[in-house]
């Protein structure tokens, strides 16, 4: 838990939180699930890199190139350590979307024969199955649809309960034909935390690989990817107080070593002739072209910031906010939570539908009160369909969110149906 003084110090670290919006209203930022705000130390780390150490990494032997490479690899070690894995198991990507696509295209390339015998386990074809869940963000659904379309494999999925939790009664979808199981660690809509252990056990029992979308968990919970025993995991820097343009793919070392490359070009090679090329070991094999070095340095500052607060404290702070959000929303007539109604195994991410008022209109009224929430389908159309709505509004908290933020949101939400005359109908 963060004390009031600690929270106040945290908030002071985020310059943007001090600004006003829409005719001078204090900003109430409840869109952290979309992207988090950045503490000063992250901004400073990026600026310092550009001011003092900027150079291309893993090429060149001058002093700056050495320092930049060191900064880049030290960032990798810090971020890998933050999620409980070895530096050699962490590939830098642009974001989680790119990380998941990297895995899917590595399967494709293996299916086309690239990577040779070592990559045999990534070959897919008719009869093979890829399993996802109905809760997935489009970034952990569409790449698998596309992979199945390219390889002839079949896409199947685990279902959800009416509260948006993974329905373990559908776990038997995972069977002998299953080769990949891709699931989210925590839903970006319902906030529900998935029972990863059960899914991993079912997947590994049939020899399937597990790909975890950890975008929403890594910023908010202590996450140890080795302890979770997943085979791959993806997360984005910008959702965890870091810069945009940097994310990461975790892969078990033996899997990364066997995987054929996806993006090819400079700095991911060993020997190149006019006709063929041998590739660098991972993680460099998957980092073609000039990398987002300053952003990795910024992300390192972000995980160090979170590490100093302690992820247990961050999670406890946000658990209290989840409870306050749920209690607050429950007081407003005509508002239905899309997701678990209790704070157990859920994030402080609360999507909701307002009876008689479209989410866009809800968001507009909240915005007028300075409250920033997300409206729309949050890149999860099948999940919304499953929950019986086309779209929703979503309030999502972060480490810097205060009880006063939640209360301001609930107060503004209470005015929505009156304004649109929805209560009277």
């Amino acid at each position, binding site marked *: 838990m963060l004390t009031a003084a600690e929270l106040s110090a945290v908030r002071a670290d985020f310059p943007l939180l001090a600004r006003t919006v829409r005719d001078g209203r204090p900003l109430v930022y409840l869109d952290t699930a979309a992207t988090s705000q950045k503490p000063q130390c992250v901004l400073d780390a990026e600026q310092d890199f550009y001011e003092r150490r900027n150079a291309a990494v893993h090429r060149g032997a001058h002093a700056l190139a050495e320092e930049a490479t060191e900064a880049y690899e030290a960032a990798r070690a810090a971020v890998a350590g933050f999620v409980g894995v070895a530096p050699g198991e962490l590939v830098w990507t642009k974001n989680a979307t790119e990380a998941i696509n990297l895995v899917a295209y590595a399967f494709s390339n293996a299916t086309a024969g690239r990577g040779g015998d070592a990559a045999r386990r990534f070959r897919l074809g008719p009869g093979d199955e890829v399993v996802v869940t109905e809760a997935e963000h489009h970034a952990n659904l569409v790449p698998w649809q596309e992979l199945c379309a390219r390889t002839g494999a079949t896409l199947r999925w685990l279902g959800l309960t009416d509260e948006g939790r993974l329905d373990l009664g559908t776990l038997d979808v995972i069977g002998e034909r299953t080769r990949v199981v891709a699931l989210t660690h925590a839903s970006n809509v319902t906030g529900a935390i998935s029972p990863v252990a059960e899914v991993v056990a079912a997947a590994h029992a049939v020899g399937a690989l597990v790909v975890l979308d950890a975008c929403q968990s890594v910023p908010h919970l202590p996450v140890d990817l080795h302890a979770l025993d997943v085979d791959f995991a993806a997360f984005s820097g910008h959702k965890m107080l870091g810069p945009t343009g940097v994310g990461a793919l975790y892969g078990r070392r033996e899997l990364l070593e066997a995987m054929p490359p996806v993006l090819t070009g400079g700095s991911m090679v060993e020997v190149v002739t006019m006709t063929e090329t041998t590739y660098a070991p991972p993680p460099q094999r998957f980092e073609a072209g000039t990398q987002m070095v300053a952003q990795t340095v910024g992300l390192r500052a972000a995980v160090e910031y979170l590490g100093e607060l302690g992820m247990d404290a961050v999670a406890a702070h946000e658990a209290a906010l989840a409870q306050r959000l749920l209690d607050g929303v429950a007081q407003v007539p005509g508002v239905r939570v899309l997701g678990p109604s209790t704070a157990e195994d859920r994030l402080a991410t609360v999507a909701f539908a307002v009876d008689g008022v*479209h989410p866009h*209109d809800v968001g*507009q009224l909240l915005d007028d009160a300075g409250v920033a929430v997300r409206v*729309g389908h949050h890149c999860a159309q099948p999940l919304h369909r499953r929950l019986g709505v086309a*779209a929703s509004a979503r309030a999502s908290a972060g480490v810097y969110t205060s009880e006063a933020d939640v209360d301001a949101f609930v107060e503004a939400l209470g005015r929505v149906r009156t304004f649109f005359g929805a209560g009277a109908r």
Partner: protein
Amino acid sequence: MSMEQLYQQLILDHARERHGHGLRGDASGPGAGESFQVNPTCGDEVRLRVRLSDDGTRVADVSWEGVGCSISQASTSVLSDVVTGAGVADVESFAAAFDDLMHSRGAALDPATEERLGDAAAFAGVSKYPARVKCALLGWMALRDALIKASKGE
């Protein structure tokens, strides 16, 4: 801008009443056209049908179905009032004027344009919110597409 200025009473009323709502007539065939448009950011949808007069110069009927926010529903409702019975050329220039209004970023309307737009001028406030402009234009995009199909209908 206040929310009362954005959501003028005319908009709230149209969002509730939805003139022209409920599809009628044929989706295709001579003088008929239909268009389906979505706003991918929020999942709003509109399916709109037009039927041209026998000589093809006037819009004889407009009907639509859709789900969406009050801005998109009201805008398509006003569209239905404006377009039904109007000449095709007038409809096209009206649609262009409404498009200009939506991209005006809140600039004041000149009196002539305001008069020309009539009820549709109530959407002026939407232009100050770039994320909402597509909501107001969704029905109009469907109309333009449906008119092209109707005029090509064999």
